């Protein structure tokens, strides 16, 4: 068809490469996705309570990580952190090793960029909780902390499901940069397959389809979650 050659898809070697790579990509996305939500919650709480010292520092970190490319952040973490002291000495061999593996660095770069975005998403959710709700709870004797944990945060999390989904999909897509620091995700193996088969277009098309499929499944799943947790009469933050 159109002169394309997809026979390599039948080769068990390439099949096993793609499966191994897919597993890594999914693991990367799940770990970074969960962490980014946790970062979002903690960061939003710090900003919400205007925690001294931590709050301005969080603001600066958000500004830094949101406005620089995750790829450069990744290179920085991967190549530089050991230079500024993040390394340990292997007790067996006596060799100096970086604290963070390539996998960890990729997760780190996804967490900084998309975590910063997650903080802003949860914050926007909190700010769209009606002030009457908060006033009502306060007048019933709830402390600020209780109001945050029992009212504002749960409401914010539910209202921001669509935005959070976009952020998770963005993590899945951005995780492809793992291949550039020799982390064996699906893009890495695809590149290897491309170099062996010389069938660049075909391999890239398959790779593209796989990512679109994962992202679409996640989007559809999130839409179901969003419907399930939706509070009648409450809008969504977009």
């Amino acid at each position, binding site marked *: 068809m159109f002169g394309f050659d997809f026979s390599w898809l039948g080769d068990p070697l390439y099949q096993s490469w793609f499966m191994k790579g897919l597993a890594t990509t999914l693991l990367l996305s799940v770990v970074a996705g969960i962490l980014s939500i946790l970062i979002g919650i903690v960061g939003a709480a710090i900003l919400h309570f205007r925690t001294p010292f931590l709050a301005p520092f969080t603001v*600066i970190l958000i*500004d830094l990580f949101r406005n620089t490319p995750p790829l450069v952040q990744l290179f920085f973490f991967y190549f530089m952190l050991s230079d500024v002291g993040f390394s340990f000495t292997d007790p067996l061999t006596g060799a100096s090793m970086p604290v963070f593996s390539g996998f960890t660095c990729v997760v780190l770069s996804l967490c900084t960029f998309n975590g910063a975005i997650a903080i802003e998403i949860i914050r926007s959710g909190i700010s769209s909780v009606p002030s009457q709700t908060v006033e009502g709870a306060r007048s019933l004797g709830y402390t600020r902390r209780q109001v945050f944990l029992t009212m504002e945060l749960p409401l914010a999390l539910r209202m921001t499901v669509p935005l959070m989904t976009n952020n998770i999909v963005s993590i899945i897509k951005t995780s492809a940069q793992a291949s550039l620091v020799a982390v064996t995700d699906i893009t890495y193996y695809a590149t290897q397959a491309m170099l062996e088969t010389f069938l*660049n277009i075909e391999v890239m098309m398959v790779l*593209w389809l796989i990512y679109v499929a994962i992202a679409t499944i996640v*989007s559809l799943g999130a839409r179901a979650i969003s419907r399930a947790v939706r509070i009648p009469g409450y809008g969504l933050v977009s």
Partner: protein
Amino acid sequence: MSRELTHALIGFFGVIAVLGGVFLAAYGGDSLDAVIVLTNRASLLLIGSNSFDSVGGGFLANIGISLASMVVATVLGVSLGGATTAPNPMVRNTAILVVNLMRNSPWLVVLYAMLYLIPFRLSIFGTEYWVSPAAKAVVGLSVPVTAYMSEVFRAGIQSVPDGQWESARALGYRRGAILRRIILPQALPQMIPNIMTTYAMLFIGTSLVVVTGTKDVLSVAKTVIASDGDDYATAVYLFVLLLFFIYCYPIATASRAIEQKIRKAGLHG
């Protein structure tokens, strides 16, 4: 000075201070040497050539590629966004499907794919064209950004009340004229912050064109590191982070300020 501006300045100088702190922590007593290396390579990183009298790439290439992609994505995004609100269900559903496909594509893979999908030499109507890696990067970046822009336009169009459509139709205007004369003039100011945010995101994405073989800032950075030695890699990457931050931060901050202004005007008007 307004509170917003104060906050923006704290963020701006705070980040620069953080980057500077990392720089000093990494180099300690050798900081001056690293600064000298950076100074020598600054023109290469900024404009891709050794002196400031010619331009060959570097950070300027990222700016150029981002602007060109933005133009392409805006033109295509308007058409596609219009199509997602079209009355004809077949046109509408096709457009929505296309937008979702484009949105869910990873930028890096799209860039790789464009590298191989687009031939390097095209002959169109008998004239031969060289398709430079930069042109491919523009096409590749335009794919996801077109989807984002079409969403921005769709949201903007939908932010105008239905009554505007109805009264314009009652006055005898047709769909195209209503969009052009009535809807877009009202929707555009609403879209500006989203357009700016999308542009900032696109600009951050230009870091990925390193895989296309363009002389962008990251490719130059890698070459500089290969030539000057690994010792100065931290300095070079910090410099690149700084460049991206200085360019993107004002855009992001301004877009948020405009958004707040529009929201306030909406509450009072």
